[in-house]
């Protein structure tokens, strides 16, 4: 019952946000073009690389492309769903956050999902098409696909944890903008499989800042290159991060209610 209400609410927020975005049509289109360009440019870079080196860390051309396509999807979905996080600093600074707290809606939900721009769906669509196309060019198994989808969900869970963490930081310090961009910078490292990095960096990127788990593991399981142990570790880390982020959020809320003035 509650879930239905929240989905309906999300859709309502999304419609309103999109209407606002539409008012500055020019800006909205320019942003969309920018995002597309960013994607295309890196793709060109990859193609340039692969024409000269043929193989990167043992992966074939289409496998590398598939890694990038996975990254792209995992980069697009959070920006679509949790765009509101990018606006959070102004809410806390202007006192609008109090209005969020006073409503009978979870403030975490509101701060995460309250600003989805439906126009981003176009980018999502392109990302999915590109992903499916790349997947068609490599060897996959049914088992691999199931594992892939599960790890995608796990990756989104990790991403969600980071976003919640950033929100909590925003409440405590009002420093949100650079924090969320730092998250983006870190995840960018996953545009290529983390296997290309040497140890100890690879280990660091996989387990400490779990970019590897987010971006590299799903394609690897799709290609049958991931052990069961790693799979389990991935889920454990995903769930732990999520729980920890919720804990941190609750802590931040308590601090806000004790200290805000």
């Amino acid at each position, binding site marked *: 019952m509650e879930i239905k209400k929240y989905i309906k609410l999300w859709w309502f927020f999304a419609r309103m946000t999109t209407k606002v975005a539409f008012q500055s049509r020019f800006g*909205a289109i*320019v942003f969309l073009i*920018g995002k597309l360009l960013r994607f295309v440019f890196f793709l060109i870079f990859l193609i340039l690389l692969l024409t*000269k080196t043929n193989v990167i*860390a043992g992966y074939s051309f289409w496998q590398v492309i598939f890694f990038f396509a996975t990254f792209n999807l995992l980069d697009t979905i959070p920006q679509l769903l949790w765009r509101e996080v990018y606006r959070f600093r102004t809410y806390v600074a202007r006192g609008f956050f109090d209005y969020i707290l006073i409503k009978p809606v979870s403030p975490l939900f509101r701060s995460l999902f309250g600003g989805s721009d439906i126009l981003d769906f176009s980018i999502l669509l392109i990302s999915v098409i590109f992903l499916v196309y790349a997947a068609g060019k490599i060897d996959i198994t049914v088992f691999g696909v199931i594992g892939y989808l599960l790890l995608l969900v796990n990756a989104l869970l990790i991403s969600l944890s980071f976003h919640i963490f950033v929100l909590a930081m925003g409440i405590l310090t009002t420093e949100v903008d*650079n924090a969320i961009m*730092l998250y983006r*910078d*870190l995840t960018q490292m996953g545009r290529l499989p983390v296997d*290309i990095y040497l140890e100890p960096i690879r280990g660091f990127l996989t387990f400490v800042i779990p970019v590897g788990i987010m971006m590299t593991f799903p394609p690897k399981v799709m290609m049958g290159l991931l052990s069961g142990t790693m799979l389990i570790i991935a889920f454990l880390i995903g769930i732990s991060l999520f729980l920890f982020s919720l804990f941190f959020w609750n802590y931040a809320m308590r601090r806000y209610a004790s200290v805000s003035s």
Partner: protein
Amino acid sequence: MRKYFLIIVNMWDEIFTYRLSFAMWRLRNVFQLLTIYFLWASLIPKQSVLFGYSQSLMLTYVIGTSFLSAVILSTRTYEIGDNINSGNLSALLLKPINYFGYWFAKDIGDKLVNISFSLVELFLLFFLLRPPLFLQTDIVPLLFFIITICLGILLYFCIGSLLGMIGFWSPEVWAPRFIFFILIGFFAGILFPLDIFPKPIFNILQLLPFPYLLFFPLKVYLGQLSMPEILKGISISVIWIFSLTYIMVLVWRKGLRMYTAYGN
């Protein structure tokens, strides 16, 4: 002259007020550097060569772009748009200060702060990573290196100011700037040196202003350009600087007329 100096000093104050924000910004820069550094270190292992670059040359290039970003790409010109839209421009116009001089001074201040921190970060990274740096010792490339840096600073200032002046016509100042960030990210050579492009494409790219921000100065430093090539590059960047400055002044006059007509 003193007032411009004060503006520069003020930047330091501002940064220290927004300590956390600035610290995170520098952290981001470090991570961006590390990302590209490790990428190329893996792509070009020791002893091998890719696209005509040895590991040492490529890593020098990467570190060079990081440092030059602080020198050339740090700017405050994005505030111009907000300045116009908020109406604060009026306050500035009343002051006995040259508008472009003001923003350029702010730029220098911002650059100085970023350069200082960049140097500290690079110093630490040298200790930790021990990159195989290529140190240019020949005085001629070094001299031209300095010249191209200065040209790069002027060039970026023009681009930044023009982007900022969009504020005269639209409240949408961030969207065009966003596109430019992306264009610069690709065409200035931050991610990779531009000459990995096939020749025909590379020749076209050389006509754009972007390569002269980071790629060209570094190529000069690395000593990989012949004198004719250096002079050709300098000429193109000078042409761009003059053209953009001319446009900048025109746009400024027109925009100012509009701004004062509406009595903002």
